[in-house]
Structure formats: structure tokens, C-alpha cells
């Protein structure tokens, strides 16, 4: 393949093809940055209980070490990264201006035993993703120098799952 052809393939926006029909799957990426200090202030302040219960799942709070007596700063770094991930997911979902965003706890980032983050969508977030044909969600988190960052990606498929959710039973949406 000529170098020009390779460059054209890389920049076409179509890097994956559906194994069923070969239709291209387009990636969507979302990024968000969250300063740790505001999260730390929320954990120290009078709103701590409401803040945690409204924004983070029990699993995310557990992963932050907050319940195990971890340093508040360490917990804040973990939660700041997760908050950034939740915002990054919303950017991938691209809800319409007059559409409510998914509740924060419908977007959950858990820590695998390996330490890697695992992104899970529930409720309204999952429904929005399904209706938009977004699958293969993945995320990467990091924090340093008082800032947490999250990058989230998903693949947009033209296929709309049937109610049986059998991946072999799909129909094409006119996307």
C-alpha cells in the first residue's frame, strides 16, 4: 500500500469495521480535567455526605479508600479522576441541549484488581448509549500536580440492537 493510501485510511475516521457487515464503526472520544482541590473541599465541607451520595456509587467510594481511612487527599484524587470520567462520558454521549444529562451515578468507574479502571453505564446513561449505538466503552485515568484527567472512548455503530440483545440479531439503522 502506498504511503498516501495508508495516510488516507488512518484519517478517514473509520478504523474499525463491523464483523457482520463490514460497515465502519466510528470512534468517539471525550476528555475532561478536574482539579483535585475542589473535590477535597467538597469532602471536607458540610456537603460531604450529600456530595458523595449524589455523585459517586458505593463502589467508587470504596475504591477511593475513603471508608478505609485513606488520606482525604488520596481519596480526593481518586474521586476527582472519576468525576472527570463521568464528564468525559457525557461528552461522548453528546446529549441534546434540551436533554437532561444522565445522573452522575449512572456512570460508574470501578478499579479492577489489576488497578485498571473499568467503566460501566447504568440506567439513563446505558439507555442513551444504546440508542446512540455506542459500544466498546473504555477509559483511562490519571492525576498529578493537583489535577485529574480522564479520557473516554466508545465506538459508534450503525447497528441498533434488537430487544433480545442477541448480537446476531441486528438490523441496520439508517445512520
Amino acid at each position, binding site marked *: 500500500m502506498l504511503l498516501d493510501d495508508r495516510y488516507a485510511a488512518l484519517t478517514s475516521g473509520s478504523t474499525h469495521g463491523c464483523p457482520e457487515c463490514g460497515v465502519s464503526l466510528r470512534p468517539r472520544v471525550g476528555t475532561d480535567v478536574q482539579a483535585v482541590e475542589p473535590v477535597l473541599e467538597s469532602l471536607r465541607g458540610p456537603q460531604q455526605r450529600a456530595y458523595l451520595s449524589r455523585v459517586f456509587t458505593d463502589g467508587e467510594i470504596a475504591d477511593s479508600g475513603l471508608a478505609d481511612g485513606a488520606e482525604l487527599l488520596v481519596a480526593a484524587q481518586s474521586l476527582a479522576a472519576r468525576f472527570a470520567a463521568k*464528564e468525559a462520558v457525557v461528552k461522548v454521549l453528546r446529549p441534546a441541549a434540551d436533554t437532561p444529562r444522565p445522573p452522575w451515578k449512572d456512570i460508574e468507574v470501578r478499579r479492577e484488581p489489576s488497578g485498571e479502571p473499568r467503566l460501566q453505564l447504568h440506567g439513563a446513561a446505558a439507555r442513551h448509549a444504546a440508542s446512540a449505538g455506542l459500544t466498546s466503552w473504555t477509559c483511562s485515568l490519571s492525576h498529578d500536580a493537583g489535577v485529574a484527567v480522564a479520557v473516554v472512548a466508545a465506538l459508534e455503530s450503525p447497528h441498533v440492537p434488537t430487544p433480545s440483545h442477541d448480537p446476531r440479531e441486528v438490523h441496520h439503522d439508517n445512520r
Partner: protein
Amino acid sequence: MTTDDSLHEQIRGVLAQYGKLPGDVASLGADDDLFRAGLTSHSSVNVMLGLEDAFDVEFPDAMLQRSTFESIAAMAAALSSLLDHAGVS
């Protein structure tokens, strides 16, 4: 002071406490875009929680959109709706 003025002043108080806006909240117009004025996605969470605590309401999922918190007037309209629904004048 009208009821609306009072509501706006209470919202300004919550904004001043939790919004972390770089400028003076008192100088903001009721329809000024608060996100352009420095409100972030995280600080909007704290503002929401502050309003819920101040007015003893809970914003339902359907109101969790940027437009609900984008201005003092927008928050006042949302709160009025919630308070009316709760039977509080």
C-alpha cells in the same frame, strides 16, 4: 422586595458560597451565563446541593441539565417549579 427578588438573592447567596466564581456574584445579571462567568461542572454540583439544602428540595433527574444552572433566572425558575410542586409559596 418581591418574592422573585428574594429568591434571586437567596440564589446569589448560594452561588457566592459554593459557585467559586472569580468575580463578584452581586455584579451578575439574572440572565448572565454563569458558565461563561466561571461556573464549572464540579462547582455546579456544589451549587445544586447548596440550593437543595437551602430550599429543602431535590432536583429530579429531569432537571439535571446545563440549562437549569446556567443563570440565576434559570435556577429561580427551576426552584419555583419545585417549590410550587411541594406546595410551598
